[in-house]
C-alpha cells in the first residue's frame, strides 16, 4: 500500500488535469478504458486479462457526463480532505450515504458510487484501499497448515490456521497486505465455493491428509480473498485448485480467480492467479460420476452461451466442457457427492481429480 501523501498527490493530479482543461479552453473530460467483455485482452506479460485500448470519454458536453465529472470532483475532495488527511476511512455504502449532501452531485444508487470509485482506481492506478475505502462484505476464511502474522489496529497477532483457530478457520481482513506468511507445511491451496463443502473437507480431515490450505470463497470472491490466494500462490509457490458447483456462474468465479474479472480488470495483475486450475465440478464429471443433477434454467443456458463468446473462456478445455453441458442441459452442485456417501468426495473424487491434474 502506498503512502497517503502519494495517494493525495494522484487525486490532486486528476483535479489539476480538469482545472487545466478549463484554463486551456478544452472541454473538460476524462478518458477511461471501456469496461466491457469486448475490451479485455490477454496480457502475455503477466498471464492475466486486462483492459484493451477502447476508451470511453466522459465529458461535460452532455448533462450526464457533466454530472459524473462533478461527482468525481466531489468524491476526490472527500477522499483527500476526509480520508487521507485525517487517516479515516469509509465503506462503499457509507460513501453512497455521504453524497446525500452533495445536491446535484448526489449518487442515485450505490452501484453508481461503487463504479466511480473503480474509475478513480483506474485513473490514479491505485486501489480503493489506498483511499481508505472498504468493502462491506467480509473476506473469506482460511483453514490449513499455515502460520501467519497479522498487523491489527490493536497490535501484532500470530496464529496457526489449524491450531489457533476455531472450526470456521482464520478470517481474512479486508486489507490483506497487513498479513505476513511465516511458515507452512502445505502442498496446495484449494479454493472452495460453498460453506457446506468447506466444512465437509475440514470434518473429513482433508487438509491434514493432503496438506491443503482450504480457502472458503463465499460465492463470488471478494478482492481480499482473491488477493490472498494470489499471495499464497506467488509467495509460497503453492499450486491453486478451484472447486465449485458445476454451473455457469461458478465458472465465472473460477475465471475471476484465474483470468481476471471484467469489472476489475485494472487490478488483474494484483488479484489474479493465472496458474490456478479448475478442479470441478466439471460437466464431464456429471457423466463420469453419474451425479444427481438439476435442469439448467433459461438464464443458465444464456449464461453458458455468453461464456462461449467470452474471450477468457476461449480455450479447448472450456469449449468442450461448456458445449457438453449445453447438450446435457443439467447442472450439479458440490454437495451432489453426498449422495454416494459422506466420505466419497474426500476418499474418491478429490484424490482422483488431483492425481489426474498431477498434484498428488
Amino acid at each position, binding site marked *: 500500500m502506498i503512502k497517503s501523501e502519494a495517494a493525495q498527490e494522484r487525486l*490532486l493530479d486528476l*483535479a*489539476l488535469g*480538469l*482545472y487545466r*482543461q*478549463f*484554463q*486551456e*479552453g*478544452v*472541454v*473538460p473530460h476524462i478518458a477511461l478504458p471501456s469496461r466491457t467483455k469486448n475490451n479485455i485482452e490477454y496480457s502475455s506479460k503477466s498471464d492475466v486479462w486486462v483492459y484493451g485500448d477502447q476508451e470511453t470519454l466522459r465529458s*461535460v*458536453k*452532455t*448533462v450526464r457526463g*457533466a*454530472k459524473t*465529472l*462533478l461527482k468525481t*470532483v*466531489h468524491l*476526490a*475532495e472527500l477522499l*483527500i*480532505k476526509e480520508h487521507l488527511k485525517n487517516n479515516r476511512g469509509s465503506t462503499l455504502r457509507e460513501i453512497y450515504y455521504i453524497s446525500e449532501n452533495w445536491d*446535484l*452531485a448526489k449518487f442515485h444508487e450505490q452501484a453508481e458510487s461503487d463504479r466511480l470509485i473503480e474509475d478513480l482506481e483506474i485513473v490514479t492506478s491505485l486501489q480503493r484501499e489506498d483511499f481508505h475505502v472498504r468493502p462491506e462484505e467480509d473476506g473469506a476464511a482460511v483453514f490449513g497448515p499455515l502460520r501467519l502474522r497479522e498487523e491489527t489496529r490493536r497490535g501484532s497477532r500470530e496464529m496457526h490456521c489449524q491450531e489457533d483457530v476455531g472450526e470456521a478457520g482464520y478470517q481474512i481482513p479486508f486489507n490483506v497486505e497487513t498479513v505476513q506468511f511465516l511458515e507452512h507445511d502445505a502442498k496446495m491451496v484449494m479454493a472452495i465455493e460453498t460453506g457446506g463443502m468447506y466444512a465437509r473437507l475440514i470434518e473429513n480431515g482433508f487438509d491434514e491428509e493432503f496438506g491443503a490450505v482450504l480457502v472458503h470463497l463465499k460465492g463470488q470472491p471478494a478482492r481480499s480473498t482473491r488477493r490472498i490466494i494470489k499471495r499464497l500462490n506467488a509467495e509460497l509457490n503453492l499450486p491453486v485448485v478451484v472447486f465449485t458447483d458445476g454451473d455457469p456462474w461458478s465458472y465465472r468465479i473460477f475465471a475471476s480467480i484465474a483470468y481476471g474479472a471484467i469489472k476489475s480488470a485494472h487490478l488483474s495483475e494484483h488479484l489474479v492467479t493465472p496458474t490456478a486450475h479448475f478442479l470441478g465440478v466439471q460437466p464431464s464429471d456429471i457423466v463420469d460420476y453419474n451425479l444427481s443433477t438439476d435442469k439448467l434454467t433459461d438464464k443458465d443456458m444464456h449464461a453458458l452461451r455468453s461464456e462461449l463468446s467470452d474471450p477468457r473462456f476461449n480455450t479447448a478445455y472450456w469449449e468442450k466442457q461448456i458445449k457438453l453441458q449445453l447438450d446435457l442441459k443439467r447442472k450439479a452442485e458440490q454437495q451432489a457427492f453426498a449422495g454416494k456417501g459422506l466420505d466419497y468426495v474426500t476418499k474418491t473424487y478429490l484424490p482422483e481429480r488431483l492425481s489426474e491434474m498431477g498434484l498428488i
Partner: protein
Amino acid sequence: MEIAEELARQQKAISVAEFFEKNRQILGFDSAPRALITVVKEAVDNSLDACEEAGILPDIFVQIKRDGDYYQAIVEDNGPGIVSAEIPRVFAKLLYGSRFHTLRQSRGQQGIGISAGVLYSQLTSGKPTRVVSKIGPGHPAYYFELTINTSQNEPEILKAEEIEWERPRGTRVELEMEGSYVRSRRQSVYGSLKSAAIVNPHARITLVEPDGNVEVFERATDALPKKAYAIQPHPAGIELGELIKLLRYTEKKKLRVFLKETFSSIGAITAQELCSLSGQDPERAPGSLNHEEAKKLLSAFKQIKVKSPPVDCLSPIGEELVKAGLEKEYRLDFIATCSRPVSVYSGNPFLVEVGLGYGGELEREGRVEILRFANRVPLIYQQGACAVTHALENISWKSYSLSSPAGGGIPVGPAVLLVHLASTNIPFTSESKDAIADVPEILAEIDLGLKEVGRKLRRYLSRQSLLKERREKEEIIKKILPRIARKLSEVLEKEEPDIGPVVAKIMGNLLVKRAITQENGLASVRIDVENHSDLHRRFKLHEVLSCRAESADPLPKVIPIGDAYDHHWKMSMAPGERVTLCYQMPSEARLLQPVVEGVEEEIVTGAKVI
C-alpha cells in the same frame, strides 16, 4: 298468353320511397344507434345550409328525449324558415330539393336526408313527424304533422294549422323513432355534433341529452363562411355523353356562344380556339354536331389549358378557422394547417383542406385520430372505405415524425388529422354519405395536403428538439460547470478557473478573450476571437479607449467619440477559425469591455453585444 306477356303485366314502377323502405341501410339507418345519429345529422345539416344561404349565424338546438324504447329527436334552428306550401314536400317527399341541379357547394345535395329520417320515423314508431316553421317576425308560424305515402312518394298531411311561436323565424322538427343513445364513442350524437362544431366554427350548437345534461359547442367566430356561388360546369374532365347532352339541349344558337356561356373558365378567345382546334365553324348550331364532331370537340378540350374553376363555387373553411376549430375542441401543443388550391375532377371543382393537431392531451401510443369532413359535414362511419384514409395510409409517416405501424396503415402518435373536402359534388361511395370515393385527382390532393402539414410538424418537432438540446446545455453551463469549477478551486486551493472558453465551445458561441500585460509603462492588449459556431460570422469588434492605440495589428478603424476613441475591426470568421488582435497603449489609459456588433447576443461569450 305468352310468358313474356304475363311477366310484362307484373312489371310496375317502384316508388323511390318504397325502395328505400326496403333498403334503409343505404341511407344510413342500419342500426338503432346509427339511425338516431343520422336523423340528427341530416336535420342539423339542413339547418346549417339554410342559415348559410340566408346569411344568418346559426344557433341550433338539439334535444334527444327518451320514452321507453323510443327516442324523440328535436332539432330547432334560427334559420330563414320554409314557406308553408313547401313544408310537406321538403320533409315528406324523397328526392325533392333545391340543390341537385346547381353546381355549388352545399351539405345537402339530393334532397333525401331528412325525408329518409321521416320515413324511418314513421316505419319504426308509426308516428308522424311534427314540423314548425316561421319565415319572419310579421308572419304566422305553421304547424304540420306529416307522413310519407310510400307507394306514391308524396307527403300526407295529417294536420296543418297556424300557431303561435315565440321565435322570430326558424324551423323546428320533431321525429320519434326506435333507437338507442350512446355517448362515449365518436360514433354518437355527441361525437358527430362535436365534429360538426369543429368545421362549422361559426355555429353555436346546443345539445340536451336524454339524462338532461346540456353540452354547448360555442362558436369560435362571428364571421359567416364565404357564400358559395353556383357556377357552370368546368370543361376539365367532362365526359362525352355529358357534352352531347349539353350540345343537344342548349338554347344557344351558335357553337362559340354555347362554349362561352355553358362552361366556366372559358372566354371568347378560348371558345374561338376550341372551334378551330376541332375544325368546327364557330357560328354553326350546337345541336347540329354529330357524334364524331362532338368527340373532336372533346379532344380539343383536352388540348387547351383552361384556367382553374373559380373558387366562388366553393366555401372552404379557411386555414385560420380550421385551426380555431381544432383549438376549440382539443388541447394541443401544435397545430398545422394547409389549404390546397382548387382542382377539378370530372368537371367538378374541389378543394382539400387539412389540419393537424399534435401533442397536448392526445394519447401518445394510440393511432392517430382522423376527422373526415365533406362540405363541412363530418363523416363518421366507414373510415376504412374512405379516400381520406386511403391517402393517409399510403404516406410514409416515419419521415414526418409519426410512427407508421409495420406494413403501413394509420400512423401512431399523439396527433389528430382533419381533412375537409369541399366540392360542388362530393363523390361518395354510397348514398349514406359515409365515405369519399377513391377519385385519383382527390387522392392526389389529399396526399399533398397531408404531406404539407406533415412537413410543418417535422419542422416543429425538430425545432423542439433543438430547444431541448439548448435547455440541456443551459443546465450544463449555468448549473454544473460553475460548480465543477468551484469544487476544483476548493480541492486545489487555487483561484476559480474561467469557464468562459469552455462555455463558448459547448454552446457553439463566438468567444472573445482579452488579456493585458503591463510592461515599461505600456499595456499590451491581446484579444483572441474564436468562432465555435458552425456558421460563418461577420461582425465588428469595438474597443473604446481613452487614447489612440499604438502598433495595432491588424489596424483598426478609429473614430473619436467625445474624449474617447472607438477602435473597430471588421471581422469575418469561418467556423472554427481563430483570430488574434494586438495593440498597445499607455498603462494609465482606460478601456471598456470589448463590444461585438452584428451578431445575436446569445451566441457571444466574453463581450458586450450591441
